[in-house]
């Protein structure tokens, strides 16, 4: 009897494995009721972080100027995530972070933003041009921030993020939908050359050059204290720890996978005053040119966006972060607090290995 059961189990496992080869299918679920229409005060075009009430007012067609909008749930998988299928904001499409950034991590891609043409083509496919109002949300404030940053860099002029994501939406008493939204017709013309804002993106070459030669240029590390001090790289896939020489610490993270210090207790991203509190004793001011970076560009995005929405243009993201810096053995590195005598100044090639985050 046991033999038969195991024989059947084997058959089932094989069928399962074959099914994987054929791809995955979407789930269907019953629609939910919608809540009552909501109004909310208008916000500036450059405002990024918005409340559930404001998003609801757009969904309810009670926000002037926001008739042509796309709302999208952001997550990493290329196909709609299980979270999305389980329930999403009414009318929300699904967009993958892999539509804005490289997923290979090879020397050419380095987890940086994709080419502007590629990002634009994905946007056009979703019916988004530079004038389309885009509202993003997701569970990870860094991932959603990365998507928003990529869209702004590419040229979308009005990008919002539902601050607090789906949790904030449901906590506000609004319901989720499980019906697949009607696909918007693909846009043909984006309306501007891309990237419309190349000034918001700093290459590794520029980062290295400017941090060494421009006193006003601050390469701001949005990494945890252990990463900043070179105790760990923070990642399982980087085996050397340290920071680009000349970098200053912008705090924000407790680990390589959060920006906890930039968040309120309810999980929403802090406002500018909250960021300034975190940065009170940091070695930069908001008058400097600030190029934020982290490991691969996710944690760097929330501070960029908060300054962006407050009208700052002296900001950018050094996209390659510590990951791309490690690809260059001759690049200068500091290990430890640069204000202390113990700080070691060396190069990537000379760094000791074994500093990857233990799994």
């Amino acid at each position, binding site marked *: 009897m*046991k*033999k*038969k059961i*195991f*024989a059947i*189990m*084997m*058959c089932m*496992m*094989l069928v*399962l*494995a*074959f099914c*994987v*080869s054929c791809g995955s299918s979407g789930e269907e679920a019953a629609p939910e009721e919608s809540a009552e229409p909501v109004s909310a005060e208008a916000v500036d075009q450059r405002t990024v972080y918005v409340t559930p009430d404001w998003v609801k007012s757009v969904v309810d067609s009670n926000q002037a100027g926001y008739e042509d909008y796309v709302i999208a749930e952001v997550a*990493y*998988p*290329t*196909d709609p*995530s*299980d979270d999305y299928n389980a329930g999403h904001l009414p009318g929300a499409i699904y967009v993958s*972070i892999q539509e804005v950034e490289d*997923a*290979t*991590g*090879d020397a050419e891609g380095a*987890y940086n933003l994709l080419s502007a043409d590629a990002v634009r083509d994905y946007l056009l496919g979703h019916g988004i041009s530079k004038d389309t109002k885009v509202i993003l949300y997701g569970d990870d404030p860094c*991932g959603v921030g990365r998507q928003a940053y990529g869209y702004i860099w590419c040229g979308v002029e009005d990008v919002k993020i539902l601050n607090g994501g789906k949790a904030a939406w449901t906590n506000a008493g609004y319901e989720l939908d499980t019906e697949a939204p009607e696909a918007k017709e693909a846009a043909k013309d984006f309306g501007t050359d891309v990237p419309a804002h190349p000034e918001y993106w700093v290459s590794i070459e520029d980062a290295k050059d400017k941090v060494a030669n421009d006193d006003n240029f601050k390469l701001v590390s949005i990494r945890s204290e252990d990463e900043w001090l070179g105790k760990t790289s923070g*990642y*399982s*896939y*980087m085996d050397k720890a340290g920071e680009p020489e000349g970098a200053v610490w912008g705090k924000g993270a407790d680990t390589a*996978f959060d920006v906890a210090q930039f968040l309120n207790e309810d999980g929403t991203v802090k406002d500018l005053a909250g960021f300034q509190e975190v940065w009170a004793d940091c070695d930069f001011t908001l008058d400097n040119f600030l190029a934020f970076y982290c490991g*691969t560009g996710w944690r760097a995005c929330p501070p960029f966006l908060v300054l962006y929405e407050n009208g700052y243009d002296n900001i950018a993201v050094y996209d390659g972060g510590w990951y791309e810096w490690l690809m260059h053995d001759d690049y200068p590195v500091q290990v430890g607090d640069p204000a202390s005598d113990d700080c070691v100044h060396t190069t990537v090639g000379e760094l000791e290995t074994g500093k990857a985050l233990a*799994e």
Partner: protein
Amino acid sequence: MNVRRSYIILDILAAAAFAGVYFLKEFARTKLGFVRWLNFNGNKLIESIPYDKVKYIMMAVILLVALLALAAALRRKAAKGINGTIMCVVLIAASLYYVYATIAFDYAYSQAFFLMIPAAGAGTLLLAIRNLIPPVSSAG
């Protein structure tokens, strides 16, 4: 070791190996940290060994074992019973799947391809070993 117990252990391990193929692909599709770990270690592995050669040599060896196991099972009377027949069919299906995986799985298919192929190979090998072990009646 008791023959029946060894069958059970090998069945469980083979099922785990094929389940591993599924979960590796799923995690590579959904887990950012895992994808990047795969990129890092996959690149290191492919730089350090001639991966393509190794995978085909592995496939040839495992298929040879599977063929021997099939021949042995078919020679045994027990193979004519329903259990033996089912296990032979499962082994053939697993072997075909492993050949398909070896030929078709690459980075574009899944970043976890370099783990999925050996997992499918391990599952096939475990099934082959299971078929090589004579059932209780002929084991004496």
